[in-house]
């Protein structure tokens, strides 16, 4: 099966129907392994047991940015190839991205309290993640507030791409901001190179969460395709009623 074939929604539905069970199984196994390993991981000599938060915080933080990347690719698909499946991919990804960003924020805060003594700091990275979260919410609001999905898709695509250009700028400018006002003081942990004892559980969890995203994304895309079919059929229903009346 080629990529072109997959672009056909019906084939996409059939293909993902076969793929999803395997994905679910793989995700579940990897998550179980990751959780076990992180439970078994030793305490850090500086952070003690709180280092365990890292195993969920970092994958979520990575995913929060990765999902925006996925949406940007989909946005290109929408604008350049005008492909409805790209719209679907972008729309399905937005709530997932928002959820991962939310988790990065919450787990980070919960980690920050024991480490820094405060839940929230107007620090560079934290603030840029908060802005990312706001942008996800704005994007979801945009998707929800337009009736016609293909119109919404194009508007959202423009915004996603503009936002994607902006993300590195935020990150980069935020360094300037920080050096001007206060010296960088965060995101340190027992040395910059991670010990293998932490690295391996972290990587396993990262892969597990990525698989989780992939699974949820494909499932959400299927839902979205079905939703559009329902919508199209309702429209036809309305038209047929009109025909009978007129």
């Amino acid at each position, binding site marked *: 099966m080629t990529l072109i074939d997959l672009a056909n929604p019906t084939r996409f539905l059939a293909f993902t129907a076969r793929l999803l069970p395997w994905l679910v199984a793989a995700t579940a196994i990897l998550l179980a392994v990751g959780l076990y390993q992180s439970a078994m991981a030793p305490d850090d000599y500086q952070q003690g047991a709180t280092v365990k938060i890292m195993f969920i915080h970092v994958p979520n933080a990575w995913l929060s940015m990765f999902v925006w990347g996925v949406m940007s690719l989909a946005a290109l698909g929408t604008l350049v190839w005008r492909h409805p499946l790209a719209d679907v991919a972008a729309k399905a990804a937005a709530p997932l991205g928002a959820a991962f960003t939310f988790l990065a924020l919450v787990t980070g805060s919960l980690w920050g309290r024991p480490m820094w003594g405060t*839940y*929230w*700091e*107007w*620090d560079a990275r934290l*603030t840029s993640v*908060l*802005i990312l979260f*706001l942008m996800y*919410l*704005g994007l979801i*609001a945009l998707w*929800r*507030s337009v009736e016609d999905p293909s119109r919404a898709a194009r508007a959202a695509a423009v915004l996603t791409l503009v936002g994607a250009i902006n993300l590195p700028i935020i990150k980069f400018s935020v360094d300037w*901001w*920080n050096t*001007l*006002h*206060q010296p960088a003081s965060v995101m340190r942990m027992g040395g910059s190179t991670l010990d293998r004892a932490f690295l391996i559980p972290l990587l396993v969890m990262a892969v597990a969460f990525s698989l989780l995203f992939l699974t949820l994304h494909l499932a959400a895309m299927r839902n979205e395709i079905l939703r559009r079919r329902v919508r199209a059929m309702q429209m036809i229903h309305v038209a047929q009623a009109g025909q009978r009346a007129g």
Partner: protein
Amino acid sequence: MSALSALIRRDIRIALRVGGGALIGVFFFLTVVVLMPFAIGPDLALLARLGPAILWLGALLASLLTLDRLFTADHDDGSLDLITMSRTPLELSCAAKALAHWLAAGLPLVIATPVLGLLLNLDASATAAIALTLLAGTPALTFIGMIGAALAVTLHRGGLLLAVLVLPLSIPVLIFGVAASEAAITEPLSFGAPFSILCALSLFGLIVGPFAAAASLRHGLD
């Protein structure tokens, strides 16, 4: 009565549907607050001190941004003609529209204040005080702003001066709102005085606003 409730329900429904009204107002509020540290710097003590002003400015802006089309939208599509002709007194219709606007755009701001207070490092009592002053003061913003919104209908033939004359009326609200919130934080005993002035301003707006708006609408149609 049922006419007014129909009007309120319609306006709220439009607000919620068009651009997500309430939620978006809150987003906007949130974004303004998030912007502050970027301008001021991540100095938590300073942020806490500026907190009331930031929250009040955000609230003012969030209400202003949507208020200017309160009547012009209805004028442009002809609804206002029918509203004027109807059996409901125009003053009541104006008040109903303002109330709907406050419910859809002002109240959510009050409700969102606690979350924003957290971000600005305000303690619980300060946050509560600010929320209280916003609850008492945002109706004044809406009802005074309504006069400007009504003038905007009259003025589409020029003469923006009047609209600008109305804006200054909202400054006292802002000043007493901030003053009351700060009093609540620094010297709780003197909270009462500015707060009661704020309430008085709101009452004043509640009465004057609908009459002034209706008067200017009556003369503004053509």
